[in-house]
């Protein structure tokens, strides 16, 4: 752990931007058809449960990060393995988001630039900010949070003024009952982005004022969750289910529909800025978790020694993890939730919780 402190608002901002991350841009939960927004909403409700679980775990060891207290709870060997697994998980997800980011830019903005170059530029920036420490990341977040809000509000107003929204597109609600929606919730929206707050177990110890910290976390999740719900609802209302479903980036297609008079159109840059900010924070947080996880497990005192190697591992992974953008997305939808998100976001935290609880009881 580095010697740093962040305040509650900074935590709020980090969670908020982390949640929006790359999920704002993809057709999240679109398998629920017109009810994708509902799937995200229900995912958020589940997300509150998971977040409260992470908070509860944290309260057993308020000064330690996940990879540290897993050793405290499970013992030297098992705990170390669990901590190691988490570090690898964080690094892998960081690489996945990095790949998402690169694929998006290659698809719609830089068709001739190699993925590797784009990914390199982002990870280099991230390595730099992580080198500067969590406080700098948090302060960067404060600035970019304002920008992100401005973009969001402005974009929303412009979409309304252009008169694009047709709420009839959201009907029929629950065409095939609640079952397909729940199916999407438990295979997709619960874990991405809401369950991913597990990465914040590496950040919580830095918060300087533990009072009301939980409330801050819930507020950030509710705020960002509502933005995601609203965005998806607007996407469907503007584009209809069919176009939304076939779009790689529905939000981009929605923004491209904006046209006010003869002069205000082609606001694709809104999308690119949102993408940059979101991906930057999401990858940073995961990367930070991986970095300090490994540092604690291998007793590395100088963090900067680890920054470069881990960054390059993430970069190489991001380029090598899938043959095509479609394969990458397929893996992300079919295997990652099942074999990574469920164990790391739900099963292991629950086991840790039970063990910690039992230990406390047993000692008394």
């Amino acid at each position, binding site marked *: 752990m580095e010697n740093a402190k962040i305040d509650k608002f900074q935590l709020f901002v980090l969670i908020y931007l982390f949640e929006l991350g790359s999920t704002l841009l993809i057709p999240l939960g679109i398998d629920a058809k017109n009810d994708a927004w509902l799937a995200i909403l229900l995912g958020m409700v589940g997300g509150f449960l998971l977040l409260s679980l992470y908070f509860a775990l944290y309260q057993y060891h308020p000064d330690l990060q996940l990879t540290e207290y897993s050793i405290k709870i499970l013992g030297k060997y098992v705990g170390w393995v669990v901590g190691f697994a988490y570090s690898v998980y964080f690094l892998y997800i960081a690489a996945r988001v990095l790949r998402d980011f690169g694929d998006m830019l290659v*698809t*719609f*903005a*830089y*068709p*001739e*630039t190699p993925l590797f*170059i784009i990914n*390199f*530029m982002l990870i*280099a*920036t991230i*390595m*730099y900010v992580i*080198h500067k420490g969590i406080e700098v990341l948090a302060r960067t977040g404060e600035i970019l949070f304002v920008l992100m809000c401005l973009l969001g509000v402005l974009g929303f107003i412009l979409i309304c003024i252009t008169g694009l929204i047709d709420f*009839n597109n959201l*009907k*029929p609600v629950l*065409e*095939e009952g609640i079952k397909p929606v729940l199916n999407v919730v438990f295979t997709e929206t619960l874990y991405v982005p809401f369950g991913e707050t597990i990465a914040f177990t590496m950040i919580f110890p830095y918060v300087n004022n533990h009072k009301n910290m939980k409330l801050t976390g819930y507020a950030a999740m509710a705020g960002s969750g509502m933005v995601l719900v609203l965005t998806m609802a607007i996407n469907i209302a503007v*584009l*209809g289910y*069919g*176009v939304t479903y076939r779009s790689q980036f529905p939000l981009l*297609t929605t923004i*491209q*529909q904006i*046209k006010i008079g003869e002069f205000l*159109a*082609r606001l694709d840059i809104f999308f690119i800025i949102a993408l940059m900010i979101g991906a930057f924070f999401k990858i940073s947080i995961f990367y930070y978790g991986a970095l300090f996880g490994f540092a604690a497990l291998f007793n590395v005192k100088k963090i*900067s*020694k680890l*920054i*470069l190697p881990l960054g390059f591992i993430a970069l190489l992974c991001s380029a090598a993890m899938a043959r095509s953008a479609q394969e990458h997305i397929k893996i992300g939808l079919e295997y990652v939730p099942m074999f990574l998100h469920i164990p790391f976001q739900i099963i292991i935290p629950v086991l840790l919780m039970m063990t910690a609880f039992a230990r406390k009881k047993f000692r008394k």
Partner: protein
Amino acid sequence: MNLKLFFFLPIVLLTIAVVSGCYSQRELTDIAIVTATGLDKSEDGKYVQSFQIVDPGNISSGEQAKGGGQGPPITVYSAKGNNVSEINQKISKKVSRRLYFSHTQLLIISEKIAREDGLDHILDAFERDNQYRSTMIVVIAKGSKAEDFIKTLTPIDKNSGRKIVKSLEITENTSGENIKVNLKDVIDDLMSRGKEPLISGVELIGSKEKGQKMDTLQKTEPESLIEVDGMALFKNGKLVNWISGKTCRGVSIILKKTKIFNVNLDWKGKKNVIAYQSIRSNTDVSAKFQNNRPVVAIQIEIEGRISEANVPIDLSNPKVLVKLEKKIEKKIQKEIYAAINKAKKDKTDVFGFGELLYRSYPNKWKKIERKWNDVYFPEVQTKVGVNVFIRQTGSKNKSHMTELDS
């Protein structure tokens, strides 16, 4: 500290070098801006795509006209190929620059393609490419080749692509006899079982050869004229029929596309002597099942004013106005029914009644979805209610003939 510097200095330097970003830069002099593109079918079954390219040196107008060159403001290239991407490859042999599609406003599809192949096989390239915009307007070339429209020179608005888009926009707003449909709308309608696409047509009047020469711009009346006219009805992605004039207007009113339009009225045996102009209108369409049969109710509210009265009539009398309102209501109702019957006859639901049913009755809709256009839509029972208000009578009340008459 030195170690830190050792690691980070290269990264910082490399980032500066790479981020400053001229990766795949293109100079303005290396790209050719395509403003409109047309698709035709050649006799051997291949596609011919033509590109209208702006010649920036010759497009300046008005005060800067002295600086502009003497050549035509647009240049047209075309190539033949099996699909859109292949044509893009082939065109580079003819054009000295790389084509740039982000400013393409118009896609013209020839009637032949629309009738024989349908739209399904050609639109994907335009939607998938990240340069083309999904807000690009789509029209059908009525009767002639799409290429002819691309090549025609037009006065005032120098390139015909822009001219067609503007004409459509203005006709949609002021008479409703054409509607502006973009690529996204077309694909949306193609995908839906409860709504079929409806695309405006363009027609070439006059000599097409003369219209492609600069001479045409030297005359006060151009040799050839592009007119937006009529709408094409589609079914299963293929063009089945054209509608025009008042029928188009009926369709536009149902689709809520138009607000302003004129209605002519007869008065005391004289035909078309009073003109009514609407200022705003609203249409409310609802669909439901009655005794397991689909019923559609259309309610139209129109506000407007009298714009012309060529008979002695006392427009200051509210009772006369109410009488006129009733007449207008009947006339519009008739137009709406005519539009619906036309579509019913062609068995294609361009109004989206099916989509309305799907939204309210998803389960029942599933059972009739496949047979909707052929069996159920022609049998749909429709109720049309029109409410017309004459709010003003212009800057005069009685007609100048009134005094003479009495």
